[in-house]
């Protein structure tokens, strides 16, 4: 009974936060809600928009789950996502635009692989600094985000710039070299499927594999892990590198599925927004699918609100932040109530 009540509490709470946010920003309530809903789920185009926005957030969210479960606060999803995209675009410059004639079924996975490796490298830097020098991951990953943004800005107007050298963008991938789409009119691409599969894999890895168990144990209690002679540093390092790999992969999915090219606005905070996805998903890979879908729907729906307000995505950040704050404080409150009642 109590369990059902808790599950019901979620949608009610989220709806309440949504309504309050709309009211605070003085938007017409009923009409805004209608527009949000139709923008996100109204027709097949709405669903397509929602799913396409869900997938990069889901993958970075899964990356955050692995790192945070492993007791390492990766806040650098943004940087890892960007460096992933950079590595993918760099490989594309050789394979697609460099005159090497390779079939798409080979090129696309290779580019995606490059993205994953790029994210891994960027995360490895932070992990190594933590293990070797004790630099707090929270700070180092955030600082590396800003470095990655500038690196991207330099590369798209320098070495990776498109052939005509006019605008700060990389060359645009031909359609044949991008992830397959369901139909020509919609953005819906195979990356959505990949994201779902990755969620399943991350679940199996964390809860059904030895390596995943070690990562969780280290995150739960370093003392216990040491008592069992686990190599704590190695476990944390692998957690953040895997996390970075997923964030890089998210960059790759966006590059190969949606944008087809890199510009300074390549990342719409997708890397950073993995954190609210992971937190609201209770750091569980399968619940993250729902939380990513929720935020994806909000982003897709908020495009429809442009008629009333120019705030757009910023409004979604507000809803995300309040949802996460409410959720974590609810959890903390429930967690300590037995103690309070006992005393």
């Amino acid at each position, binding site marked *: 009974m109590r369990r059902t009540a808790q599950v019901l509490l979620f949608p009610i709470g989220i709806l309440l936060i949504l309504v309050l946010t709309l009211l605070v920003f003085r938007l017409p309530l009923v009409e805004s809600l209608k527009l949000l809903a139709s923008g996100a789920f109204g027709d097949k185009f709405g669903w397509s928009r929602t799913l396409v926005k869900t997938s990069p957030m889901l993958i970075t969210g899964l990356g955050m789950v692995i790192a945070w479960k492993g007791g390492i606060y990766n806040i650098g999803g943004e940087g890892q996502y960007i460096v992933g995209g950079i590595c993918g675009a760099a490989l594309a410059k050789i394979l697609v635009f460099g005159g090497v004639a390779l079939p798409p079924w080979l090129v696309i996975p290779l580019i995606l692989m490059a993205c994953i490796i790029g994210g891994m490298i960027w995360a490895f830097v932070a992990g190594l600094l933590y293990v070797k020098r004790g630099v707090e991951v929270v*700070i180092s990953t955030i600082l590396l985000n800003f470095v990655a943004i500038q690196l991207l800005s330099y590369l798209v107007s320098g070495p990776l710039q498109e052939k005509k050298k006019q605008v700060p963008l990389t060359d645009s991938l031909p359609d044949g070299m991008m992830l397959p789409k369901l139909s020509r009119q919609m953005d819906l691409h195979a990356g959505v499927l990949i994201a779902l599969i990755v969620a399943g894999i991350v679940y199996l890895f964390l809860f059904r594999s030895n390596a995943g168990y070690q990562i969780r144990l280290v995150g739960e209690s370093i003392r216990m892990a040491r008592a069992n002679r686990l190599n704590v540093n190695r476990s944390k390092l692998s957690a953040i590198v895997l996390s970075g790999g997923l964030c890089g992969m998210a960059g790759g999915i966006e590059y190969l599925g949606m944008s087809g090219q890199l510009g300074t606005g390549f990342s719409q905070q997708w890397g950073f927004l993995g*954190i609210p996805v992971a937190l609201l998903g209770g750091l569980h890979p399968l619940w993250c699918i729902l939380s990513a879908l929720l935020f994806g729907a909000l982003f897709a729906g908020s495009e429809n609100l442009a008629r009333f307000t120019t705030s757009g995505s910023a409004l979604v950040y507000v809803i995300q932040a309040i949802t996460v704050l409410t959720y974590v404080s609810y959890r903390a409150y429930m967690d300590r109530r037995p103690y309070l009642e006992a005393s």
Partner: protein
Amino acid sequence: MEFVSLLQYSAPVALASLGEVVVQKSGVIHIGIEGSMLAAAFFGMLACYSTHSPWLGLGAAILAAVVLSLIFGVLAILLAVDQVVVGTATNLLSLGVTGALFRNKFGSTGQLLSIPRIPAFHGFDPILISMIVSIPLIWFLLTKTGWGLAIRACGEYPKGAEAAGFSVLKLRLQAILIGGIYAGLAGAYLSLVIAGSFAENMTAGRGFVAIAMVTFGRWKPQFVFLSALMIGYAESLQYKFQTYGWNVPYQLMIALPYIVALLVLVIVGRGSMAPGALAQAYRKDK
């Protein structure tokens, strides 16, 4: 370079990190300092824009930062939610609220926005002066007063502080309040003194750099201030490097403060100076 202008470049990071010293000494790591600065910069600008008084702007800036810091305090201290989680979420909240209000009121660029700035005398404005006064003041508070001793006890060994009759929760909230005031001054400095305007996410990670400088400055106000000066110098280079004739991409110069912050953390490492209970929530019932 003139010393005054070096101080001006350093001021946002210096002010934020001076406040963060007090917060971290009490055993709390306030990642949300970035969001508090951003809220201060925005609401300072908004109040100044509406009332044409930079002084009311300054008040609004401090108020905004304090409110956001107290939200952090209530969740992270009273409810004992993980400090990094709450800090990250309040940052996102601030980014969202300031972004949404700014776009609503001034359009997505707000390029014509210009507000009266806080008056200065030979480059010295009241915020800058308060920054200089704060260095010995915070040093004195932390090392020479009973309150400072209690704060440090909260950061080293909260159970001990509690046993000595202090309320750890109350002291940590007081520290966060002070941190909030300084984050407010730092944010106000950006919008009301340097820019005379506002741009989305204009703090650009200075709050995080400030946290790095607290570590590099070994939690001592005087050293933390010197570290902030170094960042200020690195930041000033992005406006000067071309006149020096350096042929490097400008993006490298923008990234320089972050790279410097990262490098100094690598150099000092973890060390043994950090407060013993840093980032650990304190719960009476556990």
